């Protein structure tokens, strides 16, 4: 009987070793193409990035899933923008962005860029270097979601 209690106690302890696979993150890229169908209506298609040339519009999709058995707290996803992609917009999730390589963060409308002559000007979408989504609430067990942002191939 005592042996059984010890085993149970051992099993009940938090299993740190499992945490490495607790959150699954998936990163996909699609090319956004606008086509006009026979009726003259525009349809937006998301295609695999098979043939991508400068000027193409890209949609980056990040899927996250808490596949562990504990809620994930202070959940932050950071995405540095590839150097060959110019930031366009980030959908509804309202991420914060950085225009100085990841040092200062904030909403794009609140950020400024230091110019060579020492003055600062309002930051524009093309200045963005990093994007970050910081979740206020923990991701519950089994919780998942999708984040997206758009860019243009330079």
């Amino acid at each position, binding site marked *: 009987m005592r042996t059984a209690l010890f085993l149970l106690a051992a099993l009940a302890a938090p299993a740190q070793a499992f945490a490495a696979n607790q959150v699954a*993150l998936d990163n996909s890229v699609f090319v956004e193409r606008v086509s006009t169908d026979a009726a003259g209506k525009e349809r937006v298609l998301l295609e695999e990035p098979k043939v991508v040339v400068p000027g193409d519009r890209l949609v980056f999709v*990040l899927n996250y899933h808490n596949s562990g058995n504990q809620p994930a707290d202070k959940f932050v996803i950071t995405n540095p923008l590839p150097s060959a992609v110019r930031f366009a917009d980030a959908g509804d999730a309202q991420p914060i962005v950085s225009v100085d390589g990841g040092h200062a963060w904030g909403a794009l409308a609140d950020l400024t860029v230091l110019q060579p002559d020492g003055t600062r000007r309002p930051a524009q979408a093309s200045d963005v270097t990093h994007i970050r989504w910081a979740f206020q609430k923990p991701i519950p067990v089994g919780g998942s979601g999708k984040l997206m942002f758009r860019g243009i191939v330079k």
Partner: protein
Amino acid sequence: MTKLTTMGALGLAVACGTATPALAAGTTAGSSITNTATVDFQVGGVSQTQQSASDTFVVDRKIALVVEEVGTVTTDVVPGQTNAVTTFQVRNDSNETLDFLLAATQIAGGTAAHGGTDSFNASNLRIYRDNPSTGTVGSYDAGDALATYIDELAADTTARIFVVADIPGGLANNAVAGVQLRATAREGGTASTQGAAITQTTGANTAGKDTVFADAAGVNDGARDGAHSAADDYTVKTATLTVTKTSRVISDPLNNTTNPKLIPGATVEYCIAVANSGSVAATSVAISDSVPTQLTFNSGTIVLNGTVTGSTCNADGAAGGGYSAPVVSGTIASVAAGDTRTLVFRATVN
């Protein structure tokens, strides 16, 4: 509507994201774009190992180029002129350094680049590439090399090209010859060697660098064919001379200068008028005229370079010319476009 695939990019870790410089023509073809997202989180107040996921794809080659005439006007030429130049430029708007095969042709009839009607062909059509460092940069000179293709033109760079030809003689004023220059993209990569032809990647994508044609239609090529072309023309500007000879009685021995008649002993004034209805001055206009046998030339009466008013030869020329029986001759230095100049002399009826 987002169509998600279960690409599961976690396994697609790529060696490194590239840091290619941003060009106006775009990211260099063949570059990989890698997007990496990282996740930081805590469990039970304890920070967990950061996780990340990446996705990579390759930027393909976009072939785009523009050939255009430099300037907006025709090239004025004179009949018999050699090495008449029309100037073009070729700009590589692709995202890769390429060779460009060049072809210069002439149109056969029809409307030329600046509105005239093509009516002759120049001869000895050649293509030269402007040397960007020696000679007069931007103008055709001895330092420019004969070219059949442009070698290794970098993305976002322009090459100036001269199409040079010889103009035949005997052409009328305002005759036009239309010329066209077409450039076709070829593989780059090996200097001083014309690259192979490029075909667009059709059908399924490859894992490597594919090619998309993004050029517009030129004057003698179609849209999205890897080529572009432009037109220019030569316009002949020459003098067109018309000669008229008139005469009037100045005086006779009996009536003198009052209503003189053409009787033996009367003085007749001849006026040879040269009219230039062309576009440029005629120079060194040599006039010669044989005095009819029924008259005797009055020496010292040759007057050159006078003007006309209507059909009347004015007496405003200067002494000149010469007489070597029976020919009266004289040279007018210049008859301007639209002007008329005269050689005037007197003779007496035998």
